[in-house]
């Protein structure tokens, strides 16, 4: 029986077989005999999550435009399927052709969150690929990109090449290099050496030596002599998003996925400079896609997919420079086709209100706001450029326009936080409630619902808060409890908060170094996988893994890193300078804000690289 038939035999035994079918409309099939490079693109989580990821859609599209390359998708099999695959000797396979991943030329893996790291180990094992890069003699090169590649060290021993930054051009360079490397019949090591020199944003971890001080901190991250590897690896940067590749067709899944709609990336980067936000730093500078291009793409995608909803994607869509015009044009253009447009709700300004009234097509889903902190003092510390007045105005407007549900997002454990700051969250919720009742009864919609969500702050590499330790779990739990009690006094509030144990492990890896790779191996051996899913996360197993590896997790999660310390990612350059980050960290301690850089350059360091900021 061939592999595909053997997979089919399992389909009646698993939850949601549609996760493993492939063959969706607009998925791409080529003749393997007619391509030079077979590329497996993996998202290390379940299909429904993977298929909601815009980056994969962009890279799948741009690779498959090449006649010489066939890119196929790979997702983590859900634990039920994983078990059956092991029992029946079925290796990890691609969705399109059901080819074993081991038979591909390149395995690209996107690193979206730290809690997916164990899934990468599971995937390599299931694929039958050597876990450690140094042991690989054949099989695909393992290339990892995405935001977590900006602190790649915990995964370093398992990965051939990390690619930092924008992928739509660099991914072609890895493919071109592969073709040339194969033609010349070079060794695996030669591919790595060449990648380090020839591919934008490529970091080859095996070409670096890491030395440590007696106290366990890092002494130096040094490129190995004679390899030509760079002391500082700068990310790949696509300066003109309007002319960059964007899919004109999207795969239409059979089952329901998380984001079941057209995603339209209107710009990349963010100018706000919130000090906790990694995305806001590593995706700099802001690059907008031109409005006419966006409309053109949207038309094509609606036709090619049949989706009935488009959402505008970016880190802060309200900041798009011609948002009202874009929104107006999209709403009027797609109304006839019954396509809904999801707009960033915090920017319902006058112009937009008229458009919405005109069409009466807007669905009043919950208004979502992210004040992040409960007091103005703490909002200034984190440089969240919103005041209480801004918030009150936004919710009052929304209530007057007929909204009755508000979601408020906060973090607990931000640097300098006190009990008062946390209690301030309840205070804000109460003010929002009052706003609702200040709107005349005949004007407002019935049924006020306020949802307060509080996640636990995780310090991330390449942000001004990278030196901060995470708040210890005991205090986090105490403050969560305290806030819960306080919010109980505010009627109509639903409080949701994160399990602090998960955030703790996330913090370990977010600021971790190469020695943590051993913990990953142990944890995965103990059965840790799908750690981002509460039903699978197992705090005790993690504790056991740290113990077996003889590593103290507090050293990474809780310790404040010294300003002069060599950071595990000191050889990685996100474009934002260390000087800027230090300056911001110091300003944070003083509670000083830094303005949005659309209002004038704040000197983050991006100017060194030209492009938009030049």
């Amino acid at each position, binding site marked *: 029986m061939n592999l*595909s038939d053997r997979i*089919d*035999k399992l*389909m*009646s035994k698993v939850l949601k*077989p*549609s996760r493993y*079918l*492939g*063959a*969706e*409309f607009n998925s791409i099939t080529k003749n393997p005999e007619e391509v030079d490079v077979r590329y497996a693109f993996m998202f290390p989580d379940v299909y429904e999550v993977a298929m909601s990821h815009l980056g994969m859609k962009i890279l799948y599209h741009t690779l498959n435009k090449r006649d010489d390359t066939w890119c196929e998708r790979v997702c983590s099999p859900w634990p039920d399927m994983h078990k059956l695959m092991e029992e029946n000797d079925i290796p990890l396979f691609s969705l399109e052709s059901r080819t074993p991943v081991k038979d591909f030329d390149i395995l690209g893996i996107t690193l979206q969150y730290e809690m997916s790291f164990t899934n990468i180990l599971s995937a390599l094992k299931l694929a039958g690929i050597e876990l450690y890069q140094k042991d690989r003699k054949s099989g695909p090169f393992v290339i990892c990109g995405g935001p977590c590649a900006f602190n790649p060290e915990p995964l370093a021993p398992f990965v051939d090449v990390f690619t930092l930054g924008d992928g739509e051009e660099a991914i072609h360079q890895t493919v071109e290099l592969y073709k040339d490397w194969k033609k010349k019949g070079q060794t695996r090591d030669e591919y790595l050496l060449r990648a380090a020199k020839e591919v934008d944003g490529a970091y080859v971890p095996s070409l670096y030596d890491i030395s440590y001080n007696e106290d366990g901190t890092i002494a130096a991250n040094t490129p190995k002599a004679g390899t030509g590897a760079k002391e500082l690896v700068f990310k790949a940067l696509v300066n003109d998003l309007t002319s960059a590749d964007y899919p004109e067709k999207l795969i*239409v899944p*059979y*089952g*329901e996925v998380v984001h079941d709609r057209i995603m339209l990336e209107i710009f990349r980067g963010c100018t706000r400079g919130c000090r906790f936000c990694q995305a806001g730093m590593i995706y700099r500078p802001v690059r907008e896609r031109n409005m006419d291009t966006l409309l053109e793409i949207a038309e094509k995608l*609606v*036709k*090619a*997919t*049949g*989706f*009935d909803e488009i959402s505008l994607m970016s880190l802060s869509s309200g900041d798009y420079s011609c948002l009202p015009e874009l929104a107006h044009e999209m709403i009027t253009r797609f109304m006839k*086709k*019954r396509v809904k447009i999801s707009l960033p709700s915090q920017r319902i300004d006058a112009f937009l209100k008229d458009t919405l009234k005109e069409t009466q097509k807007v669905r009043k889903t919950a208004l979502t706001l992210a004040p992040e902190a409960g007091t103005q003092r703490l909002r200034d510390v984190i440089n969240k450029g919103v005041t209480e007045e801004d918030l009150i105005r936004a919710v009052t407007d929304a209530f007057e326009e007929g909204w009755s549900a508000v979601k408020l997002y906060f973090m607990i454990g931000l640097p300098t936080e006190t009990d008062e700051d946390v209690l301030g969250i309840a205070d804000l919720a109460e003010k929002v409630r009052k706003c609702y009742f200040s709107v005349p009864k005949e004007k407002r919609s019935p049924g006020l619902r306020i949802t307060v969500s509080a996640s636990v702050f995780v310090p991330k590499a390449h942000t001004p808060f990278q030196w901060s330790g995470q708040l210890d779990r005991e205090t986090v739990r105490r403050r969560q409890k305290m806030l819960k009690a306080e919010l109980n006094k505010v009627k109509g509030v639903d409080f949701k908060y994160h399990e602090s144990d998960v955030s703790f492990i996330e913090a370990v890896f977010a600021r971790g170094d190469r020695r943590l790779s051993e913990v990953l191996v142990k944890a995965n051996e103990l059965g840790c996988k799908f750690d981002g899913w509460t039903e699978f996360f197992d705090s005790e197993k993690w504790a056991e893994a740290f113990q077996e590896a003889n590593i103290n997790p507090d050293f990474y999660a809780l310790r404040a890193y010294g300003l002069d310390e060599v950071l595990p990612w000191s050889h990685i350059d996100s474009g934002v300078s260390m000087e800027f980050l230090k300056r911001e960290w110091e300003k944070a301690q003083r509670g000083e804000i830094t303005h949005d850089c659309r209002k004038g350059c704040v000197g983050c360091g991006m100017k060194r690289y030209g492009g938009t900021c030049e």
Partner: protein
Amino acid sequence: MRAIFRFGKIGRLRFVSHLDLQRYMQRALNRTNLPAAYSLGFNPHPVMSFASALAMGWQSEYEVLDIKLSETMSAKEALKELRSALPEELPVYECRLVDDNHASMMSLVQMSDYRITPDQHFEALKAAAREFLFSENVMAIRKTKSSEREINIRPLCVNLTCDETSFKARLMLTEKDTLKPDLLMNTLMKMAGIEDSEFSIARERLLGYSKAGKLLPLMEL
């Protein structure tokens, strides 16, 4: 006017659930130029229905989709449109246009023909099938989402024959009386004393009665 399509569900796509297929067809419809009529209300959706739900994992060459159109067009054109929006494993075989007042395809279904191919133990199963056909009462437990009930399934099997590899079964498929082919097979397996054997199921035809009381394939009604 309504367009009635007969399509197949084959290959890997036999594992798409009925609910997923409904949503998928709605999107497929958006990709075509078929002038579907929409329901009224706050969240309008195209007026369409399937003659019968097919269980996950079964193949079929006789699925029937009934779509209401707001404008007229030829059957040939409609067929071309729907074909353009579906993958190979959802092949569209034919299209027929009917008036709005034609009975709904769903209400016409009476029986279904299946081809059932056991992976093994075919001889033993054939013997069990003979015994089944000569019995007046064969009790089996029918499970639904809400209940479990023992019923006599023998009268629900209209016809049961076989060729070299497969059984061919004509089974009742109405709201009141339904026998699913997997229940039939599990019963035969039990009679033959076979445990845990696999079989594949393909729907070959849906049937209903004409006004003159003649049993005909659904597309001819």
